[in-house]
């Protein structure tokens, strides 16, 4: 082979590589531009829209955050956000269902809703959602899809971009160190605790999602074989798998608050009981809840957060858009803002809400990353390492099965 030809050959190879790269860059730029174009079009359409954001209104802290976010979005994008405070998202689903039943394909009363878990599953199954849409949101690229698998699988239901991640939740417990000087490290020790301090331990009744999560946590800790829990529930082995759970609860109830005859409606009510001293242990899904409550005067400053040594259940909570919303663009703009590093940082501030972020630190720019890492911890908040392992939620079908079985056993 003569040297000239080799050079020619090499040059050709390089040319081809260059062309290929240029082509890919062009493609990428093109798609990005196309995406950017699409997003610009969405932002344009969103300007002037009013969206009804249906979200749980039982926490002042969260309501204040939503108000802050709404003000920013209105100033920056001209989208007006109305926070519709609800107690139970089921009510909203009911309404959307009624609308679908009446053939109302546009002009729905809900534009954006805060949901997760079995609610998402129900809406997805009945075709009540708009989407897939979260892939269109520019800030989605910061979402941690590697270390936080629950952003892709909501209670094991594939998300498939039908909802946009908003924050993380992890089951934590709170104890009043003024009244007791030790706390249980797992469910079995919780039973011992209850026996030592009868009437001072309780959990919310399913189907409250706090109660159901407590039951799931107990089941995850006590089940001998955890694999059936990550598959759809099967009639055959349900009793066998859940036997240790019922044995535990049967043993616990007589030592519980009100001897297990009455239950609380959820973590907020338990927080009040904790403050009164009616119970000594409470629970929450927000690791920053205790610090927030202390800062707000809801709890005394002797409250401390703790987790069980084997890890506690965690999941992601999302926002979703109903199929018949008339303001889908505005809803998407708001959902995108909620995922932005700016909004996520504000949300994670202990003084504001303290809700953990869904974003991946390594995907952020250095300035944002530093800001996250510099967040102070509240006096009753555990650090990320102290929070320990996050256990994955069981399959969504277990929720209904467990709730029904619990109600059958304990609703006399």
């Amino acid at each position: 082979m003569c040297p000239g030809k080799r050079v020619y050959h090499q040059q050709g190879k390089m040319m081809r590589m260059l062309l290929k790269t240029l082509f890919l860059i062009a493609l990428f730029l093109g798609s990005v531009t196309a995406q950017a174009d699409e997003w610009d079009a969405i932002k344009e359409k969103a300007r002037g829209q009013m969206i009804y954001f249906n979200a749980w209104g039982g926490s002042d802290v969260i309501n204040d955050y939503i108000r802050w976010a709404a003000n920013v979005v209105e100033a920056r994008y001209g989208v007006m956000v109305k926070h519709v405070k609800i107690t139970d998202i089921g009510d909203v689903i009911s309404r959307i269902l009624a609308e679908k039943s009446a053939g109302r394909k546009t002009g729905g009363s809900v534009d954006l809703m805060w949901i997760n878990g079995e609610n998402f599953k129900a809406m997805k199954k009945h075709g009540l959602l708009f989407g897939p849409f979260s892939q269109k949101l520019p800030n989605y690229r910061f979402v941690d899809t590697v270390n936080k698998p629950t952003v892709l699988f909501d209670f094991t239901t594939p998300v498939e971009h039908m909802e946009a991640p908003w924050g993380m939740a992890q089951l934590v417990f709170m104890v009043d160190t003024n009244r007791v000087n030790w706390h249980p490290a797992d469910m079995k020790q919780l039973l011992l605790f209850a026996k030592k301090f009868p009437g001072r331990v309780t959990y919310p009744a399913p189907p409250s999602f706090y109660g159901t999560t407590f039951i799931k946590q107990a089941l995850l800790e006590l089940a001998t074989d955890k694999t059936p829990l990550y598959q759809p529930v099967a009639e055959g082995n349900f009793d066998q798998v859940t036997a240790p759970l019922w044995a535990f609860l049967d043993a616990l109830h007589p030592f519980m608050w009100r001897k297990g005859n009455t239950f609380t409606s959820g973590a907020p009510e338990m927080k009040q009981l904790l403050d009164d001293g009616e119970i000594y242990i409470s629970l929450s899904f927000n690791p920053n809840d205790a610090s927030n409550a202390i800062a707000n005067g809801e709890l005394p400053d002797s409250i401390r957060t703790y987790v069980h040594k084997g890890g506690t259940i965690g999941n992601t909570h999302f926002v979703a858009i109903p199929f018949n919303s008339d303001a889908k663009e505005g809803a998407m703009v708001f959902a995108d803002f909620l995922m932005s590093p700016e909004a996520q940082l504000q949300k994670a501030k202990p003084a504001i809400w303290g809700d953990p972020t869904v974003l991946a630190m390594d995907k952020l720019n250095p300035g944002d990353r530093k800001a996250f890492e510099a967040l102070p911890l509240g006096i009753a908040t555990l650090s990320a390492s102290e929070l320990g392992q996050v256990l994955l939620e069981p399959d969504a079908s277990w929720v209904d099965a467990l709730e029904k079985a619990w109600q059958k056993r304990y609703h006399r």
Partner: protein
Amino acid sequence: MQRVISSKKARRLGLFPVITLACFLSAIVSGLISTWVQSLGYLPSIGATRISWDPWIRLFSQPGFGSSLKTTLVSGIGAALLALASTFLLFAVSYHNRFWKMLNQALAPLLAIPHAAFAIGFLFLASPSGWFLRLLSPGLTGFDVPPDWSMVKDTAGLSLMLVLVLKEVPFLVLMSLSALSRIDVAGSLAVGRSLGYQAVQVWGRILLPQLYPKIRLAFFAVLAYSLSVVDIALIVGPTAPPTLATQVFRWFNDPDLEHRLLGSAGATLILLLVVGSIGLLVILEIGAARLMRGWLVNGQRRFPMFLPAVISNFFILVVVGFSLLALLVLVTWSFTWRWRFPDFLPETWSLRFWQKGLMQMADPIRNTISIGLTAAFLGVVLVVGCLENEVRMQKQGLSTGTAGMLWLIYLPLLVPQIAFLFGVQVILALFRLDGFWPSLVWSHLLFVLPYVFLSLGPIYRSYDQRFTDIGLTLCHSPWRVFLRVKLPILLRPLLFSFAIGFSVSVAQYLPTLFMGAGRFDTITTEAVNLASGSDRRIVAVYALSQLLTPLLVFLAALLIPRFYFRQRKSMQV
């Protein structure tokens, strides 16, 4: 005989009853049918198109169903019977004594306190960490932490029953006072006592038997309410399992959409319970009337008064006192920063929650007031129209069919709200009328109308027609006479009925939730939503706001006539 000539304009008055009836019946009938259809399994949006008894079968096999049913019946029927018995006892034993005067003066404010605010106050008073125990601890009880007692939200539903009784007795007393004004009480007491009977015996044998038929419908309304109440049950009712109405409400909100059918079946069951209880009471009434004829005239003139008097007077103190204390505890909590058990008063105070609350409440308050004022105004206009039409018909000698009318007026109060409101929501959604402000006002109007009718009717009818007759001879325009003679004379009762209509609208919970499609928060929906567990301080602020709003309108209703007629002595009733 001279024929009374009715002008064309006057005949237009006939439209009023038609519009009013159309308002009521259309909502109730369509809502009921829609709910019944769903209870049989027909709800296309979730793919349920097969008519079957399946939802009913599932209803009866729900875990805890039996217990729910029992609690509902005990607290519902128990509360209604106890309220009636207490009312009768109060009249028979405490009529016109010192305690009675206290009750009378407190009656209007007692009625103006909305149910939710009262229930929240009760919760803050009577729970193990409530004010009563803080008063007694640690001094008398030695408690450093609240005892593990089931004082509110008890499984038997007794605290629910107590709250219902405390709220229903003032209502029954009011209805009784109105009914008794048509009986010569003083004369009957004089005759009875001159024949040797103690006053309480005269009440028992002469007056109460005449009173009961007149308040029968009000009593049935109390019964229907007690069996189907949701907002009070959410606050002080049992939780595991809850009452049937609460459970149905939860099913309507359940993410599993199949539960809507279950909810419809449950709601229809509640309707059947109400109808059945009313039927049972009618039968009991007939039976008792027969059996008691002998007792009425057996001549027993004495009655040991000591214990009944103590119970009755004590009960008045409890009714008035509880409301007062509930108010106080709400006020205290609203200004609290930290208040640990067992301190009697908060250790630190703060205005923060009022500031925060008022800021957050701006929208709900605006909604509450606008809906309330509109519904009350429309209610008064419609009722006045119907009553004027009645006057016109009486002048022509036409019968007005009052007995049937009365049942129709009471219908929205007798049919449980939960039995038809969801059905109406589905129908409204069909026409895209849900979440529409006029639909919401209309749904409130449905419940405002009966109360306005009941409060305005007797007084309107007792208006001396001769004023109008003379006015017509002086100035020949009926419209002018109406505006310048009849309305001013009736100003005070009109404003009072307006205030009552307004407070009924403020207190509505389920209609706002269902009809408003979540677009309209009112003070009441916010307060009930927060009451289940939220920060007591903000709940107290909301509850007080829910309470103060109608009170302010009542105050206006009191002061405006006083000012307007400040130089007219005979108008100062």
